[in-house]
């Protein structure tokens, strides 16, 4: 077990180094000079250009820039945004809670709907309910979520007027300093009447949009895992003993059926972060996904580089944890 643990951890290290290299090289290859991008068509005096390039380290050999970059990363220095002049890590940490809050709510939405739907579909296999769930899952899995978001805005916000169109908070009526960065918590801490409700209202549509694909994946996975478990001998034994169907399904079968489901839930991190780019763009949600897209438009190399590095690092780490947890909770493969 311990050997597996160390082996698995050691295997992620080269991935990190390669990730550093790729983000560095790729961002170097982006067309357009960041300084030219900022000066635009007005042009710039050659000496001023040289000075700015020197300031940003762009005049040094590329390999030296890479070593500086790698060294900085190891010390938690992800560079300084060319546009805002603030450290990339700082910008990321300010925006990340918004993405995290959205992702957690999306995942809760997906799990709370997906697991029961999958279990019921498996128990009532072949029924109308089963077919409905599977059809909905197929549609969810195939959904262009940016369009789904626009449709929901069109119907829920524009037509019915139920939910806000964009953003995290009703900034005209409420203002409070961020404490945790999580709007749900901050709005409660602020003691302002209605602020929490406004935060929830802003979260509903983005969570549904971001949670749609994970919901479909989780429902499908739960159903097939449950079907497999329901065919096992111990479930038949439990039934033969005369246990109530609820007890058989809820206690005996579900516990084992959930093992692969938990893994699939953990592996949604990548899907959620990729989906966050689209969801945040549609709902003007001030998170890291939207920030990344804006960094490209502004030719902000360090922000792009650091952002991709940090997002990927999170995915690698979460997948590592999921892998280790899977081995820990599943005795069948522990010694494999």
């Amino acid at each position, binding site marked *: 077990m311990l050997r597996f643990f160390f082996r698995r951890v050691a295997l992620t290290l*080269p991935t990190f180094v390669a990730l550093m290299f790729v983000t560095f090289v790729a961002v170097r290859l982006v067309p357009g000079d960041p300084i030219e991008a900022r000066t635009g068509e007005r042009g710039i005096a050659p000496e001023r250009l040289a000075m700015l390039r020197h300031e940003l380290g762009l005049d040094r050999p590329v390999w030296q820039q890479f070593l500086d970059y790698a060294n900085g990363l190891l010390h938690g220095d992800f560079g300084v945004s060319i546009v805002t002049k603030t450290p990339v890590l700082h910008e990321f940490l300010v925006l990340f809670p918004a993405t995290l809050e959205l992702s957690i709510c999306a995942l809760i939405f997906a799990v709370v709907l997906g697991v029961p739907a999958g279990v019921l579909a498996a128990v009532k296999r072949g029924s109308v309910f089963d077919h409905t769930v599977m059809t909905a899952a197929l549609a969810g899995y195939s959904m262009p979520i940016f*369009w789904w978001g626009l449709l929901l805005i069109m119907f829920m916000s524009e037509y019915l007027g139920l939910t806000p169109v964009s953003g995290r908070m009703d900034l005209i009526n409420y203002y409070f300093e961020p404490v945790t960065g999580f709007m749900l918590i901050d709005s409660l801490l602020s003691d302002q009447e209605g602020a929490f409700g406004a935060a929830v209202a802003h979260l509903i549509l983005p969570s549904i949009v971001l949670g749609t694909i994970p919901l479909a994946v989780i429902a499908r996975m739960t159903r097939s895992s449950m079907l497999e478990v329901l065919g096992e001998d111990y479930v038949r034994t439990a039934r033969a003993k005369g246990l109530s169907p609820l007890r058989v399904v809820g206690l005996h079968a579900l516990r084992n059926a959930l093992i692969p489901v938990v893994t699939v839930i953990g592996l949604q991190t990548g899907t959620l*972060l990729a989906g966050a*780019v689209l969801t945040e763009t549609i709902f003007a949600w001030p998170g890291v996904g939207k920030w990344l897209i804006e960094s490209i438009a502004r030719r902000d190399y360090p922000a792009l580089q650091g952002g991709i590095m940090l997002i990927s690092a999170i995915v690698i780490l979460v997948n590592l944890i999921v892998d280790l947890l899977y081995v820990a909770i599943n005795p069948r493969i522990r010694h494999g």
Partner: protein
Amino acid sequence: MAEETAIDDPMPTGPAQLVLDSASDGAIGVAQPSSIAAIAAAETVPPEITPLRAFWSAFSENRGAVLGLMVVIFIAVLAIFAPLIAPHAPAEQFRQFVRQPPVWAGGTWAFPFGTDALGRDVLSRLIYGARISLGIGLSVMLVSVALGIVLGLAAAFMRGIVEVVVMRIMDLVVAIPSLVLAILVVAVLGPSLLNTIVAVTVVYLPRYVRLVRAAAIAELSKEYVVAAQVAGVGKIRLMFVTVLPNCLAPLIVQAALGISDAILEAAALGFLGLGAQPPTPEWGAMLADSREFIRSAPWIVTLPGLAILVTVVAINLMGDGLRDALDPKLRRS
């Protein structure tokens, strides 16, 4: 699920049946109920049940898959004959008919699905858009299958440093969220239709490489491979002629499902303004153009997304059917 547990056969076969007509290991271990006929066929060899027919009888059992196939064929016909079918040119602007509603909302038959903000016929743009989306999906699929076969077989056969390098790179690609990686590639190469294909190919390459490698390694330990080696078959021939055909079934399934993923990914890039550039009638880009008309002209928003959804659902249905027919072990539900 009785039939599924029955399928739990340790030998990943079935594929051979597809390619090696009635050859040695053709039908061993294929326990899918609908191919039982095929096993019988291999034993008694009645000439009329060909592998293709056995496949079709398994595939056509699944009504959803047949429906998906029909829709895919319909969209493909639209794409191929777009200039003949589309009522107008995709970029032609009818300035006096800006944002005409579709026919069912009080529009005219001249523009059955209405017109967009520049007076372009939405129906014609959707039909031409099918060319682009299917084109992207197919190109990504073909390139990544070809590269996946080469890299996967190389990793499986050479092992050692080649395998480590290839698989580590694939691990890295998988670690970066798909859309973020695609954005990075497009940021480097610049937004265009061709670069969209490159970006999406990079994102989806690992699954083909991993699949081919795993399938090839599983095949390598089998007796027919050893026999071929003993008979003096060269390495390249062993890779591509002896082993590869037996890895094809899961690859075909993955390729079919990969088309729909590629279409979705490309549309997302188009929506972010990082894919096809105007005036290309790409479905994702059409959606991006239409965002400000959510209230005033909902059809401009609704129709391109619907086109994406229908296409992707149809391809996924077809892919699920292919999987059930070709590769019972991968069956998910």
